[in-house]
């Protein structure tokens, strides 16, 4: 099967990244409304964001990939998940979450709203073996 293009483990890394922000969110939510030491939640968020960046970088280097389909799906999925992240964020703001925990949870929602569309678009494009188009810069 040496002629099959190899792809980076985008799904595995994406799920690990999501698991990290979920863990950070549970850590914060479990201690509210008392004062919460933010260190562990920030560490988990930074790790999660680093995995997102790594995933994007690794994927951008793949040449034999249906980028046209990837961007088509990514854009619409991003819109959908930005809406759901916005609604969950609105509920945080509405019930008085402020300061550090609000910033960490909001940034976690940003990672979520970027990583889930990336996973959806990647899964669609990897099985859509039309002739490869432009590399990652294509929109």
């Amino acid at each position, binding site marked *: *099967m040496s002629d*099959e*293009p*190899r*792809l*980076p*483990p*985008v*799904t*595995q890394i*994406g*799920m690990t990244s*999501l*698991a990290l922000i*979920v*863990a950070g*969110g*549970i850590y914060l*939510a*479990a*201690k*509210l*409304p*008392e004062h919460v030491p933010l260190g562990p939640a920030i560490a988990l968020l930074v790790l999660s964001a680093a995995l997102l960046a790594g995933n994007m970088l690794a994927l951008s280097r793949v040449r034999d990939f249906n980028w046209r*389909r990837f961007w088509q*799906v990514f854009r*619409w*999925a991003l819109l*959908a998940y930005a*809406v*759901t992240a916005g*609604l*969950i964020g*609105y*509920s*945080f703001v*509405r*019930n*008085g979450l402020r300061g550090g925990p609000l910033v960490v949870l909001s940034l976690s929602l940003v990672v*979520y709203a970027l990583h*889930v569309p990336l*996973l*959806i678009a*990647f*899964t*669609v494009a*990897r*099985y*859509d*073996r039309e002739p490869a188009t432009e590399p990652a810069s294509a929109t």
Partner: protein
Amino acid sequence: MSDVVLPAPAEAPPAPALPRPDFEIVPRKGLIGVAIVFAALIVAIAMDKLWPLTFFHVAFGAAWTILDLMLGFVLGPILGRLSPAARIELTIRLMPKMLLILPTVVTCTLAAGWQLGHFLHTIDSGYHLHGWIVASYIVVGIMAIIALGLLEPANVAVLFELKKPRPNPAVIQRLMKRFIFTAGITGAMQIATLVIMTKLASG
């Protein structure tokens, strides 16, 4: 650890030309319903009253649980045993709806649930059943990771494959296996949700 994609369709055995009804991957008419539900959710959170928050959390949470249990333990195994033509027919009619319904019920359940917990002070760390609340966070977290990372992408990808003039049966089979497997896991996790939520409701 790296993924290997399936062979290109050109190398795969020729796909049988199965009749498929035309369909929209995302039903556009359904988006109107989603927009109405989300608008009502925003109003409910802004009002911060017990009944609307309870309605959204309980009604949509129940829909989420029932859908996951149905998909995981009833429809999933049935889908696996259907003939290819019947499976495609059911998939085309079911999956686009699931693409709208599941994220909507999950968002409403979580957003209203958080606000309801704030209203009732059940999310406070001093609440006497706080351990059960944290357990619910963990169960929902695990379900979210599986659903967002595996189930939802497989759902969308299988619909794109079925939109092609000659879908690759190997790709559909692989994605449907993933969908059914993950739906089974989330279905099992929903049993834990039922245990936790009934415990919380009964105090």
